[in-house]
């Protein structure tokens, strides 16, 4: 059976050994541009850490479950009995070394694997963080640019405000001018009236003074004595009446 395998492999090996610059039956189809499937997470299954599972599956149809074990045992006894493999001190040393190695791997293998995985995880996480930061940063920048565009649209307010200011200034100035005109005219008219009233008052005062002066002058001495005597008699009568009333 092994010989049949050998026979089948021979022509392929001969073909690959033959010198050929052209690639032969390989890579003749169209280049496949689809993304390649991701690498498998786990390696191939092995039994007892050494022998791949495919060997057991390969022998299962002919020999059942125990086939490879029987094969292995028979092979071992053949080698020992025919002294193809000789047991010497190296065998014992080798067996001890192998035992210790198996113990160490069984005990600490998981931790070492976890540590190595963690190193890898950290690298990937760092790269992922960088990528996420870049995405967030870009998004926020885009937001800001849009906001700035929105702000720019508000420039009309500024110019409206400026024009309003100018219009208000002009209006204020015009109103002030009107007011000034009115005030000036009113002041002048009021001044005229005030002057008139002042002269009139002065004339009145002067006239009154002049009349008083003349009247006082015209009171002769005789009239003065008579008026004083009359006043005194009047006063006497008044005082008599008041004394009687009290």
């Amino acid at each position: 059976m092994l010989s049949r395998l050998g026979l089948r492999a021979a022509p392929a090996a001969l073909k690959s050994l033959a010198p050929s610059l052209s690639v032969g039956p390989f890579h003749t189809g169209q280049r496949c541009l689809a993304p390649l499937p991701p690498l498998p997470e786990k390696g191939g299954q092995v039994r007892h850490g050494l022998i791949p599972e495919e060997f057991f599956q390969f022998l299962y149809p002919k020999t059942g479950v125990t086939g490879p074990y029987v094969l292995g045992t028979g092979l071992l006894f053949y080698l020992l009995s025919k002294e193809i493999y000789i047991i010497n001190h190296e065998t014992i040393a080798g067996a001890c070394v192998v035992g210790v190695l198996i113990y160490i791997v069984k005990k600490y293998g998981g931790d070492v694997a976890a540590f190595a995985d963690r190193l890898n995880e950290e690298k990937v996480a760092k790269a992922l963080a960088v990528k996420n930061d870049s995405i967030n940063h870009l998004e926020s920048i885009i937001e800001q640019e849009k906001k700035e565009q929105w702000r720019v649209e508000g420039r009309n307010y500024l110019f409206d405000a400026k024009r309003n200011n100018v219009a208000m200034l002009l209006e204020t100035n015009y109103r002030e001018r009107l007011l000034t005109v009115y005030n000036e005219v009113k002041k002048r008219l009021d001044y005229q009236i005030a002057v008139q009233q002042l002269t009139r008052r002065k004339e009145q005062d002067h006239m009154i003074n002049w009349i008083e002066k003349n009247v006082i002058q015209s009171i002769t001495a005789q009239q003065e004595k008579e008026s004083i005597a009359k006043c005194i008699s009047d006063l006497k009568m008044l005082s008599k009446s008041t004394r009687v009333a009290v």
Partner: protein
Amino acid sequence: MAGRRAALKAIDWMAFAERVPPNQRAMFNALKTRNDALSAKLTSLPEKPPAIDWVYYKTAVAKAGMVDEFEKKYNALKVPEPVDTQTGKINAQEQEAAKSAAEYVQASKSRIVQYEKQLEKFRTMIPFDQMTFEDLNKVFPETKLDKEKYPYWPHRPIEDL
């Protein structure tokens, strides 16, 4: 300038304030206070001066034709409106601002397109744990090791490790 009744446009100061960027706040506040001062002054002045009572003056003032002359001249007087020199400049400024704003928006849009492109690149990237170094160099060209300049490992100057 068309008549003195140039209507004052109502300005929404709240919306205006929203759009002011923070580094121009001071200028905005100055503009607003100036505007408020001007409008206060405007409202404090009467629109038309009070009418002069010519009848009373005619009876009060003694001088013969003075009041009539004053009345005639007063009614004939036309107060000149102040000349508007600034609105033209403001309009010119507005045109310029419109132009520069259009340019800015243009530049901003092209920047946004660039950013969007980069964003697309990041979003359609394959996850890191399925990448080979070739794929990594395609997405981030700066990670490509220059094997011609530095033929020996680690293919970059020691300081950059």
